[in-house]
Each structure stands twice: as structure tokens, then as C-alpha cells.
């Protein structure tokens, strides 16, 4: 059987190269023609073929809201401790981003300096930022930079312009939000919702 017989799109290798590294393919990513790759996977015909093809080597394409990623079939998920640590850190980060005046959402663009400035002007934010662990950098700006760096390595952000250090939020950010949204809090929350409303709009 020849490779052509599968009738795969010719970008199959590029798709594999990105997703097998654990990265997301988002519809609004622009680097390396990512949006085009997204369109190719999103085409139902291609999707079925690619899915069948990758399933053979036990990769499974997972579909999210405007993004795709790989999971492994029949393999236990491992490294639980690292995973927990990472998501704990993401809670810190999202909490910081959620407390900003200028909240980032899908498609927004920002520069680390902007966030650093806002943190500098607001004691509460400053504290939050300083308390985020595991960062070597001392200055606020460098800390924000490291966060951006981490998030773009995990392909939630994309460095759009290196000169101005401007980042763009990709659709894969939804994944983080989805994970956080799916965490259930056991506590009785009926009374607290009003306060939470106040928190976000302050």
C-alpha cells in the first residue's frame, strides 16, 4: 500500500510535526501557516482520513472550540505530579490575567510591558504577580515575559512581532478556560456569586 492510497492532504507531515510536539493548531494562529493547517484538518473529509491515519500510530486528534490537539490512545496518562504543578501554576496565571483591567480574551493582542505596567500601578496585581512561583526573574517585566514565554511554548499565545514583543491570544486559550471551567467546587456557592460579580468588574 502506497502512502498516496490514503489520500492524505500533503500537509500531513506539518500537522503531525506541530501536534506531536504537544502543540495546538488554532484557527487564528498565523505562524507557519497555522490557520491554513487548521482549515485543512477542519475539512470533514480530511479530518476522517487524518484521524484514521493517526489512529494507526495511536494518536488521536481531539477537537476543541476552534483548535485541535493530539492525545494518545490506549496509554495511561502519566507524570501526574508535574501535571498538577503545571495547572496550579496556570490557575495563578489565569487569576492574574482575570484581575487585570484589560482582560485578555481570544484574539486580543498585548505586550508584556502593558501587563507589567498595570501590575506596577496596582498593588493587588503586583502582589499576585510576585507570588507566582518558579520564576527566576526579579523584575515585574521579566516575570510577565516569562509567563508569556511559557504560554507561547504551550501554544496558547503567539509572538506576533518580535521587535515590539506583541503577543496574540490563540483559540487554544479556550482549552485552558475549559479545563478551569470543568473543575467543580464542592463548597456551597449560592451566596458567593454576587461577590464574584463584583470581583470581576472592579
Amino acid at each position, binding site marked *: 500500500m502506497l502512502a498516496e492510497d490514503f489520500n492524505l492532504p500533503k500537509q500531513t507531515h506539518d500537522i503531525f510535526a506541530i501536534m506531536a510536539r504537544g502543540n495546538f493548531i488554532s484557527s487564528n494562529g498565523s505562524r507557519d501557516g497555522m490557520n491554513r493547517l487548521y482549515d485543512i484538518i477542519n475539512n470533514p473529509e480530511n479530518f476522517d482520513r487524518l484521524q484514521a491515519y493517526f489512529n494507526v500510530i495511536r494518536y488521536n486528534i481531539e477537537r476543541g472550540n476552534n483548535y485541535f490537539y493530539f492525545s494518545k490512545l490506549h496509554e495511561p496518562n502519566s507524570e501526574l505530579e508535574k501535571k498538577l504543578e503545571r495547572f496550579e501554576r496556570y490557575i495563578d496565571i489565569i487569576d492574574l490575567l482575570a484581575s487585570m483591567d484589560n482582560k*485578555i480574551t481570544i484574539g486580543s*493582542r498585548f505586550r508584556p510591558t502593558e501587563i507589567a505596567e498595570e501590575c506596577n500601578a496596582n498593588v493587588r496585581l503586583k502582589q499576585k504577580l510576585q507570588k507566582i512561583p518558579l520564576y527566576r526573574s526579579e523584575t515585574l517585566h521579566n516575570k510577565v515575559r516569562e509567563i508569556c514565554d511559557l504560554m507561547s511554548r504551550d501554544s496558547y499565545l503567539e509572538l506576533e512581532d518580535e521587535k515590539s514583543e506583541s503577543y496574540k491570544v490563540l483559540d487554544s486559550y479556550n*482549552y485552558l478556560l475549559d479545563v478551569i*471551567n470543568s473543575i467543580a467546587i*464542592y463548597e456551597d456557592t449560592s451566596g458567593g456569586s454576587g461577590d464574584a*460579580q463584583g470581583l470581576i468588574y472592579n
Partner: protein
Amino acid sequence: MALQVNINDILSQLYQNRSAIEFLFANRENITVNELLSRGDLSAEQYQKLKSLDLIYEYENIVSLNDAVVAMFEDFMEIGEVTPGFINDYLNELHRHIKFYQEVRELRFLRSIKKYLKRINATITREIIKLQKNVDDTYKNESNYRIKLQKLEDYRLKRDTIIDFIKRTGEVVEEARTLFNLTNDTELYGIVQSLKSSLIENLDFLIEIQTDITDFINKIQFQLDVYKKAQKLKEIKDHGALYFKTNFKEIVTSVNTLRYNGHKTPRTKIAVDFLFTDDGHVLCKRVAEKYKLTRLMVRGLADKMAGNFKDKGLEQQIKLDTQKLVDRFLTQNKANLFEYLMDYKFPKSIGTVTFEERLSLFVEIAMEYQTILDFKYRLQYYDYEDKEQKKKRLGYTLILPMKEKEKKKKETKEPVNS
């Protein structure tokens, strides 16, 4: 406006300087006189002429096209700024002219009515396209969520306004139907028909836009809800209760992305054969430079092969052809194998064959051809001097060419250094 101008003048002027006009139209802001003149397609004289016709204005060294010209182009290409206010004005005008026409059935009012009906049709469609684009843009590009929400709400209001206009237009047309019928004007009939159908179509578009807006607002709301939740989780985490008051662990355990499960990219080793190629060597060199491995850096690319490399290959073959040597040994009966090899005059092309080499040849032949050789199992001795000029004696098995059929024996004795 001092000069009397006619259409012909204006058109020819615009046409003559069309590239400059095009440039000015495309860059409506911040073009200085110098910039414009340095483009080379407009001389200072032509510039003065355009200015004298009021086709372009100059203010504090900034050049701009006459607003009327810009408006004409924009209207024609349907790209200009339109606001719902326009539609309102047109509707009022339409009302007015219909009234006039009811008073006096004069053609000039009918013409205005047609004009405004057409304009309403075009403007509503453009307004809707613009609205759709704005909604999309706002959701995707507005970075501040509060402005984003506010803008989307504004668009929702705008949509309601447009729906209102559509209704009013429909009413006006309905009221004036009998009047329009009386005119017996086929052009007017066509305009009204196309207006009606486009009104219906536009209503459909608006419903779609409404779903979009609602969808976008919901998505933003979802994000905000998640943000709220993240803040709450952070609070719980700060209290150290993340693992006890939430199902954080379960959720994170079920996370199945490759990155968070330590699945590394499949890595392939470099094929060894590849390293032997020139490309592989270049790769090795780069690695060597990176890690400062001088050992690898020294080895260069292989030199060009000598022209006579084929002949050399031939010599090698002669050297290795022991079969012939054995054949020759078998045909004679003066010497035993050891003596024969020691005295044998190898061809010159092989070069000198050392004592050690002859010795190994002896062992090789003794092992390989034991079936056709006559082993005498008697030791003979051979005296020689080694490299350090020491006298040595070597004992060897007497091996003769086979003379007649004898019982074959497999045992051999290797030479023993004494």
C-alpha cells in the same frame, strides 16, 4: 470657487492626473505637498492647476482631495461611511416628495422619489454589510473586554434601528402603492420591486447578525465566568484547600494532551550510513564545532580519488590469490611449503613481502588447503633474526605436496615460536 468650471474641465483634469488623484484618494490623510510632488507624476504646474480648480486643497502644507470628489468616488464604489442617520434623512425626503407628488403630479418629484428609493435600498444593504463586519471585527480584535461588550451591545441597538427603518420603508412603500400604480411608470415599478425583495433579504441578514452578536456576547460571558472561577480557585488554592474542596486532581488527571503527559516528540536516530556520506560529515563537523570536539574537526572530507585507483585494486587481487600459489606449490617437489613460501619471489608490483606476512600466509594455506596437502608431522627448524636483531628459531610442520592418495588427516600443527 471663483472660477467657472464645467464637467469637461474637471473630468479632463482628473483624468490627466489620475495617478496622483488615485494616490491622494488612497491616502486621504497626512500627505504633504512635498511628498506628493516628489512622486514625480505631478508637476508643480499641474498641481497649481488642480488647486485653482479646487479639486485639491492645501492646508498648512497638507494636501487633500476635495470632499465632493472623495464623496463622489465613495458613493460610486459604495465604500464610504454610512450611518443610519442617512437612511432617516432619505426616508424623510421620500415622504416629502411623495406629498409633493400627491399635490402636483409633476415629473420632477417623481424623479426625486425614484432617487431616494434607490438610495434607501443601497444604503440599507451597505449598512448591514458594515454592521456584520464590525460585529466580527469587534469580537476578534477588540482587546478590552468591556469595550468589546459595550460595542456589541451598541451593534445590537443599531440592528434594532435598521429593522425599524426597514419597517418604515415598507410602510411608506405600502402607503404610496396606489399612487405609484397611478403613475404607470415601469421604472418606478422595478425599483419598488427590487427594494421590497432586498428589504426581505436584509431582514434575514439582520436575524443572522443578531445570532452572531448573541453568540459572541455569550462567548465573552463564558470567558468572564471562567475568569471569575479562576479567581475563586486561586482563592481556594491560597487557602491550601485546592485538593480538598475541588475535584482539581481528577480533572487534571483526565487531561489528555501530549504536552502535559510527558509524551515526547518521537525522536529518530541518525542512520549510521548517513554519517559516512559527505552531508553526514558536514553535520558531524557542525556538532564538533558546537561542542569543541577537535577530534572530529580534524578529519576532513575524503580527498579526490587518484586516477589510477583501479590498478591498485588489481594488485590487491594478485596478493590475495592464494589458490594460484598453492597450485604452483603442488606442481613442484623440491621444497616443503614453508621453505617454498620463504623463498617465493612475489611479483614486484606487490612490493616486499615481510617475514611475518609470509608466515601468516603459511598458516592460512595450511588451514585452508589441509585436504590436498601432505602433513608430515615432523618439526623442522628455521633460524631468523627479529627486529631487535635477536636470534630466534622457529619450528614448523613439514608440509609437502600430496603425491599419492593417502589417508587424510585433519590435524595440523601451527608453527611454534621457540
